[in-house]
Structures are given as C-alpha cells and as structure tokens.
C-alpha cells in the first residue's frame, strides 16, 4: 500500500489546514505518519511541521514555529560534598555578548534638535523597546522607550540632536535558551540521570528542585563572574547538597533568544 503524502513544499490550497484556492499559502507542511498532508480532512493538529504559525495577539512576540538551534553544548562535573544545605555551583559556559545580540538600523527622517522623538524612513518590526541606540549625534547611553503604532517614530530615553539621513543602529542583547540535565556519576561515567523533581534541592525545606541553571545574558567576564563592564554572557549550574558525589551536568545553549516583555 502506498504511503500517505506527507510533505507539501510550495503552494497549499488545503482547506483542512486553513488555506483556500483564492487565498493560498506558500511554505512547508509535513503531516504525521498516516495522514495525507494534501487531504482536506487533515487538520493542523495532525501536522508534524507547520511553517505557517502566526500570532498577532497583543502581548505576544511570536516565534512563528522556529525550532531549536544548539549553539553550545557540553558537560561539566559538579562535585557535591556532604555538608547539608551548602550550595554547590559551577560555570557551565560563557559566550561573547555579541553571540546573542540583535542589531538593526534605521535612517532618520528629518533632523531633530534636543528632542526625544525621532522619525525613521521605514518601519522595522525588529526595533523594540529596550534597544540601545547608537549613531552620529547620539550622546551618552540611549535606549528606545516607546514606538509609535506605525513604528515610524521612536521615543528615546534622552533628548538628542540628530541630522537628517543619519543611520542609527539599534541593538539589544538577548538571553539564550539553556537546558540542563544532571546525572550522578560513578567515576566519570554517568549512571543515573536526574531531572526536576527527583533531586532534593536541600534537606531543610524538602523541596525537590533538581539541578538548576542560572543564565546571565550580559555583564559577565569570560569566567562567568559579574562585572558591570563585562562583555560576556554566562550560564551556571547549581544545587544544594543531597548526597555527596560527582554529578555530571549536561547543558545545551540554544537559539532562539528570549524576548523582553513587550507590554
């Protein structure tokens, strides 16, 4: 028996997926095993991959169905002693802030004089509140505090005098998505893996938290320490003593970045 059609690459008019002959969609759709991706009876819940995931709900910054991309991965050994509630922690990995920095540009539309409001030629959805602004005429540390509804007027955190047609650069450091997984080791070989809920965080509160990761997107040194002028991000793991021994902690530092609350 022939296998069901499972991949649709290009134009879709499948009404089951919400498309129509007079309003087709273009993209890539892959159905789950046993479902025909071209059949009108196939629904979005029966897709394994859908390149058409959009959401304009207020307060949401949609990722459009982006998948994980692992930037760094590895493992460290966390040695835990037998001293009760002591906290044990270790640097997993550090990275240059530029690794997870979004940057875009905008051209000034009309000179400004000691104004916090500046217009740009073209709307750019990637300009967001919180971005740092640099360019000719920008003095001091300046950030975006608001955007007009049409995204053509940017409000700056301090008044600036900027000439017409100057190209401004907007940038922001983002935190990556980090996963960790702990494993109890015998010598150097992991034998038992632990996740959240299976490893006592400490003996006093009896709360099961497992191994935790703390992710710092900026202001770190290359060894993960805090420095107000640091140019690295870092991820640390920590736990509280439950039983002594060496614990392997595996990590994956991934794209995409975490978006700041747009509200």
């Amino acid at each position, binding site marked *: 028996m022939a*296998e069901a*059609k*499972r*991949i649709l*690459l290009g134009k879709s008019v499948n009404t089951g*997926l*919400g498309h129509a002959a007079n309003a087709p969609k273009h993209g890539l759709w*892959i159905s*789950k*095993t046993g479902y025909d991706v071209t059949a009108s009876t196939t*629904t*979005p*819940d029966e*897709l*394994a*991959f*859908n390149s058409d*995931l*959009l*959401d304009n*709900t207020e*307060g*949401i*910054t*949609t*990722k459009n*169905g*982006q*998948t*994980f991309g692992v930037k760094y991965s590895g493992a460290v050994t966390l040695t835990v002693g037998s001293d009760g509630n002591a906290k044990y922690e270790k640097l997993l990995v550090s990275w240059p802030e530029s690794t997870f920095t979004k940057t875009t540009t905008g051209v000034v539309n009309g000179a400004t004089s000691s104004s916090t409001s500046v217009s740009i030629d073209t709307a750019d959805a990637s300009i967001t509140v*919180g971005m740092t602004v640099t360019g000719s005429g920008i003095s001091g540390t300046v950030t975006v505090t608001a955007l007009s509804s049409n995204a053509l007027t940017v409000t700056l955190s301090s008044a600036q005098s900027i000439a017409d047609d100057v190209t401004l650069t907007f940038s*922001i*450091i983002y*935190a990556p*998505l980090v996963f*960790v997984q702990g494993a109890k080791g015998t010598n150097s070989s992991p034998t038992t893996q632990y996740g*959240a809920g299976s490893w006592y*965080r400490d003996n006093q*509160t*009896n*709360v099961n*938290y*497992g*191994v*935790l*990761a*703390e*992710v*710092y*997107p*900026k*202001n770190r040194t290359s060894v993960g320490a*805090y420095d107000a002028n640091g140019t690295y991000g870092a991820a640390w793991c920590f736990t509280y003593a439950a039983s002594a021994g060496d614990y392997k902690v595996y990590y994956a530092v991934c794209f*995409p970045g*975490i*978006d*700041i*609350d*747009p*509200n």
Partner: protein
Amino acid sequence: MAECPRVLAGKATTARGGSSVDGLWVSRAGQNVYSCGDGDLLFDSRAPSFGQILLLQEISYSASGTTTQDYLNQGGVKTYFFWWYTDDMYGGGSTDRYTLMRPTSGTGSSLVVKNEKINSTTNRLSVTDATGVAGKVVVMVLKESGQ
C-alpha cells in the same frame, strides 16, 4: 573536495528507510544524508516532533493575583510549555538572570504558572502569585506534534 550530499527530498535510501518511504532529510555538515545515522540528521520528516516554538518571552505578573496572557493555539494543536523565574534579566546588576525554577525557601509554592485551552482558537497562560511581590517569568510554548 566536493561537499557530500546533505539534503534528500523524495524517495528514501536504505539508511533512511528504503524505497517505499518518501520524505525530507537534512544531515549535519560533513555527513552524507544518504547513508549517515539518524543521530546525524538535522531534520527528519519522519520524526514525530520538531519542537516548534510558538512563543518564548518574558511575561510580567502582578503581585498577589493572577495575570493572564492569551495566544493562538493554531487550530487547536496540543501545546507543551515551560517556565522560568527571572530576577531582572535586562535591568542591570549582578542578578540579571533567569533560573530554571524560583529558588525559594519553605514548602509552599510561590508561583503557579498554567497553560490552558480556552476554546478552538485560543490558549491562555496564567501566572498566580502568592508572594505579594510583582515580577516576571520567562515562558516557552511548544507546538506539540507527537503521535
């Protein structure tokens, strides 16, 4: 040296399941998509799930109450979600960070984060705070595509 084949669309090779199978496969750099192991694939159309992310962002919540945020469930697809506590990820200072879960003392749960299906088009995230202090969480919602 010529790069090895990395994209296979259409009829499968023996390593990809045989000639009765159709699909789309992409291998890692340096791996031949026709013959490499499944563990060397970046994309395998026969996988049950691709972990597509619907949203990954901060949500600010109010003190001593429940804060909600709606999002589209893309035709009623099942979703998985994860959340993390964040001190002040971008505000400045040594605690610019997010953490797997909130490091708190005591046995009570300080924050309850839920993901609920409201109707055929909308899901709702809710954050209920019992600490009396407003804050932020990082929330990730995945489009579930398991079998």
